[in-house]
């Protein structure tokens, strides 16, 4: 079993995020392989990053997830998400308080959710994090495009509690 110990000081930065001490372990065997965070093993709530330019939708998804015992961070566009995740910065990628899932809107100004998905999948550290795409429009070509690029799921907005149940199931599956 390969293990990487990343040591980072726990500090409260000016921007208010915390770098945490964690050990990343990879699960052996099987067709997929996930990173298990020791903090997660101790029963912590899964941490989900929600990316959407609509404030109302951010609030809605955040509430749905919090009601399902998830820790939530929100970003108002893909660029903010890229900054938060430190995508493209080899030494810092994955050093943010471990994100267990990313849910992103498809249609966003600037970088779309699809482009964000591609960036995440290009990252050696973050590519295993399940990415879910949301959209208000049911466009089959859009859906297959996202799934082909590696999105875990595609969901139609507005999200409901039953959708979040499905998401959690995927999260649990990935952990085990």
């Amino acid at each position, binding site marked *: 079993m390969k293990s990487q110990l990343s040591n980072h000081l726990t500090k409260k930065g000016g921007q208010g995020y915390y770098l945490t001490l964690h050990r990343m372990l990879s699960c052996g065997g099987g067709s997929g392989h996930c990173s298990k965070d020791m903090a997660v093993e101790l029963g912590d709530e899964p941490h989900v990053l929600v990316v959407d330019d609509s404030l*109302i939708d951010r609030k809605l998804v955040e509430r749905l997830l919090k009601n399902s015992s998830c820790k939530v961070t929100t970003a108002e566009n893909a660029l903010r998400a890229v900054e938060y995740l430190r995508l493209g910065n080899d030494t810092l990628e994955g050093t943010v308080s471990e994100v267990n899932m990313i849910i992103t809107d498809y249609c966003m100004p600037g970088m779309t959710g699809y482009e964000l998905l591609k960036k995440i999948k290009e990252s050696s550290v973050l590519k295993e994090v399940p990415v879910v795409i949301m959209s208000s429009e049911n466009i089959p070509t859009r859906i297959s495009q996202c799934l082909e690029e590696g999105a875990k799921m595609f969901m139609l907005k507005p999200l409901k509690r039953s959708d979040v149940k499905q998401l959690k199931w995927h999260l649990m599956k990935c952990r085990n």
Partner: protein
Amino acid sequence: MDVVNQLQRQFIDYSASLHREGFLDDQFTELQKLQDDNSPDFVVEVASLFFEDCEKLINNMARALEQQQGVDFKQVDASVHQLKGSSSSIGAMRVKDVCIAFRSFCEAQNREGCLRCLQQVTHEYSLLKNKLQTLFRLQQQILAAGGSISEWNK
């Protein structure tokens, strides 16, 4: 308490009429179910955000449609798309339905059609705002009288 029961009855009846008349759909009910002791003002907060959003977007659409040199229908459509999204997320069915028609007129680059829809959407938005304010007032009265609104929201 009799007063609480009366108010709760009023709340239920008013809520039912809003659904019956198509102002609200199931998504609004979903929002009410998300409310709990941890987030007792959730629906009011989301509704306020929606109203702010509506006003901003309606102004954007009006400005874009006023352009004498030529209307940028893509710009109008972008605002309508946003409004359609928020109204869908909150369960504002009538507003959402106008947005759907509105988008068709944008696509057809039909200025008259767009202006009509703008009028309609403004009308529906202010109707809904009044009705939700009434609903929330009832909610406040129930809570002030020591009653609860969460049990039978589920």
